[in-house]
C-alpha cells in the first residue's frame, strides 16, 4: 500500500527536483564529462596547446605495466579492507549486543575512531609503526620481527589495510549493532528454548537476518576502500615501496597532480568510473538476489 503523490502538471515536479539536479549536474555530471573530454586529449599542464589523440591515452594505460599492477594492488586492497572491517565490525557488534551493563559506553568508544579524519588516523598509524620512532615497531623489533614497511611491500600493504579498515570498523559496527538490535527477541528466545547455543543462534538466526545490512555495508565498504582511502595511503606510504600500495585512486592523483599528465590521469579516472559502475551493477544484480529481506 504505497502512498503516491500525483502531480498534475510537469512544471512543479521539475521545479522541486531542480536544486538536487543542479547540484548533481554541476558537481558530478559536468566534471565527469570534463574528465571524458580530457581523457581524449594530450595537453601541456598550462593548457597552452591541446591536441586530440582519440583513445591513445587509454591504449598507453593498458600497455603500462604499472597500471596493471595498480589494478591488482587495488583489488587486493579493497577485498582486504572490506573483509577485515566487516568482520571486525560484526564481531564487535555481536559482542556489544550481549553486554548487559554499560553498553552505551562500549558503543561510544567503538564509534569514536569514525570521527577521526583519515589523514590524522594515518598519522597516528605512522607514529605507531614508523621503523625508527614507532612504539609498535619497537616492540616488534624486540620480538625479533624485522619491521620496515618502507622497504617491505607486504608489511606496507598490511599497514595501509589495517589503517584503512580501522577507520571503517566503527561505521560497520554501528550498522551491525542496529541490525542486531532490531531482530525480534522472540525469535532468539524461541531458538534458545529449543536448545540452540549462542553460536548456533547467531549463525542461523541473527546472521541471515543481518544480510540486508551486510549487503549495504559491503557496497559502502568497497566504495570506501576504492575512493576514500587516499588520505591513508598518502600519509603512510605514498604508494610505495616500489608500487606496492599504489592504488588506482592514488595513481590518478600522482599522475595528475604531481606528474602533471592530465590526459593520462583523466583516462584513469574514466576507467575508474566504469569499474565502479560495473561493480555496482554486479552487486545489485547478483549479490542482492541472495539477500533475505
Amino acid at each position: 500500500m504505497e502512498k503516491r503523490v500525483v502531480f498534475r502538471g510537469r512544471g512543479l515536479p521539475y521545479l522541486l527536483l531542480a536544486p538536487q539536479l543542479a547540484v548533481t549536474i554541476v558537481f558530478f555530471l559536468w566534471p565527469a564529462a570534463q574528465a571524458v573530454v580530457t581523457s581524449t586529449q594530450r595537453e601541456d599542464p598550462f593548457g597552452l596547446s591541446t591536441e586530440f589523440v582519440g583513445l591513445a591515452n587509454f591504449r598507453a594505460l593498458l600497455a603500462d605495466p604499472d597500471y596493471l599492477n595498480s589494478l591488482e594492488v587495488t583489488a587486493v586492497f579493497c577485498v582486504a579492507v572490506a573483509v577485515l572491517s566487516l568482520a571486525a565490525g560484526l564481531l564487535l557488534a555481536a559482542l556489544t549486543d550481549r553486554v548487559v551493563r554499560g553498553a552505551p559506553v562500549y558503543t561510544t568508544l567503538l564509534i569514536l575512531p569514525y570521527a577521526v579524519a583519515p589523514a590524522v588516523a594515518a598519522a597516528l598509524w605512522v607514529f605507531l609503526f614508523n621503523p625508527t620512532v614507532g612504539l609498535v615497531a619497537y616492540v616488534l623489533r624486540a620480538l625479533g620481527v624485522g619491521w620496515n614497511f618502507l622497504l617491505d611491500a607486504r608489511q606496507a600493504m598490511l599497514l595501509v589495510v589495517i589503517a584503512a579498515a580501522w577507520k571503517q570498523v566503527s561505521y560497520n559496527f554501528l550498522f551491525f549493532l542496529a541490525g542486531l538490535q532490531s531482530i525480534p527477541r522472540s525469535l532468539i528466545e524461541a531458538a534458545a528454548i529449543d536448545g540452540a547455543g549462542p553460536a548456533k543462534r547467531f549463525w542461523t538466526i541473527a546472521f541471515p537476518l543481518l544480510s540486508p545490512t551486510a549487503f549495504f555495508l559491503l557496497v559502502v565498504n568497497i566504495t570506501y576502500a576504492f575512493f576514500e582511502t587516499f588520505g591513508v595511503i598518502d600519509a603512510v606510504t605514498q604508494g610505495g615501496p616500489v608500487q606496492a600500495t599504489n592504488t588506482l585512486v592514488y595513481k590518478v592523483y600522482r599522475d595528475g597532480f604531481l606528474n602533471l599528465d592530465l590526459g593520462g590521469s583523466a583516462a584513469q579516472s574514466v576507467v575508474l568510473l566504469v569499474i565502479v559502475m560495473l561493480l555496482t551493477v554486479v552487486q545489485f544484480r547478483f549479490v542482492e538476489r541472495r539477500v533475505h529481506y
Partner: protein
Amino acid sequence: MRRRVCLQAAAAVLTLAAGPASAATEIQLWHAMSGANTQRIEAIADGFNQAQSDYKIVATFKGTYAEALTAGIAAFRAGDPPAILQVQEVATETFMVAKGAIRPVEDVMKEAGEPFDPKSYVPAIAGYYTAADGRMLSFPFNSSTPVLYYNKDLLKKAGLDPDKPPRTWEQVGEVTKKLRDAGVPCGYTTTWISWIQLETMAAVHGQEFASDNNGFGGLDARLLIDGPLFLKHIGTLADWQKTKQFDYGGRDNKSTPKFVSGECALFTESSAGYSNVKTGAKFDWGIAPLPYWASVVAKPSNTIIGGASLWVMAKKSPEIYKGVAKFFTYLSRPEVQAKWSTETGYLPVTPAAYDYIKKSGFYEQNPGADVGIEELDPFAAAKVKGVRLGNFVQVRTIIDEELEKVWAGQATAEQALKAAKARGDAELKKFQQANP
C-alpha cells in the same frame, strides 16, 4: 547566516587593515614555505611593503610544493594566476618550455628599468635557472645543496675522532664499519636518493647524470645512470645495506628521524635541513661536505642545488610586473638575503650576501652553516650547474622505486639502474614528444 555575518566582519576587517595602503598595487606571491618559514617569507613581504608604498606583496601559503604548483597552474588556466609562483627545482623544465605561461625574470627586470646583473648571483645557483640563450628565467629564491651531518657522540663511542668526519666514500666505509662494530645500530643514512646519491654524486666527480650536459642542452637528454660510477656507488651502498653500515630510511627526507634520534651516525641531507637537525638532535653534531670517491677524482667539483625559485607568470599588467621587478631587487639585497639564509639554512644566492653574512660573524658562531655555500664554490663558474629534465618528478620517483628494490635485496645495483634508465628514458621521450 552566521557564516555570512562572519564573512562580512572579515571583509570589514580586511578593508580596514588595507585602508592606508589601498592605493598600492597588490601583487600575489604563492609559496610553499611551511612552518616557521611561512612567517619568514611574510616578514620579507612586509619589509618590502614598508620600504615603499606603490606596491604591496601579498604572500600566500599554498601547501606543499606540489599543491602550490597545482594551484598556480589551475589559476593560470582560469586566467588569473598569481604574479609570482614559487616552483620546486624539479619542475623547472616544465616552466621553461611553457613559454606562453611565464615571463622571463630578466625581461621583467629590464622592462621595468631595474638594475639587474645575472653575474651578481652565485653561478652554480643562477646557472640552473638560466636558459640556453643566457637569459635568467626565474629568480633563485631558496636554494640548498647536500651536506653530510655527523653525530660526534657516536663517532667518539666508536673510538673515532669526532672532529674528523669522513671526507671520502672510502672513509665512510671504514668509519661505518667501526661504528657497527661498536654497536651503533646504523652507520649512515640519506635523504633524497636521486638528488644526493646520483645527481650530486655524479656532479662532484665531474660526471653527468644525463646526456646533453645534464639536460641543459635540450630535450634529447637521456639518463646515464647505468655508467660505472653509478654502479660502483649504488653497489657499495647495497653492500653496506646488508651490514647496516648504510640503512635506507624512506623517500624524500623521511629518514631524518633516523639521524635525529641517534640511530644512524652519518646522514646526508639538504643544507636546508639544518634547522630540523638543530631542533631535533639531542647530541653533539657537525656538518661536513658531501663525500667523494678518492679513487675516482683527486679533488671534488662543486655540488649542485635543489630548492625552489620564483617564477613570474604571464597574463599580468605592466604595472604589476614593475612591482615584481622592484620586489626582486629588494630580495637580492645582501641584508635581506642574509636574514633569510641565516634563519632558514637556505644558501645566500649572491656572493655579496655571502660576504655580508661572513662579516657578521654568523659562520663562526654556527660552525658548519657555511659548508653548503662553500661546496658550491660561490665565486667560481660552476662546472656542473645541476640536472634539468622534463618529467623530472616522474624520473626521480622511478629512481626511488627501482632503488628500493636494491635496498630490499630484490635486485642488484646493475639491474635496478638499468631498469630505472629504461623507465626514466621513456618519461623523457614522452616529454620530448609533448613539447616538439
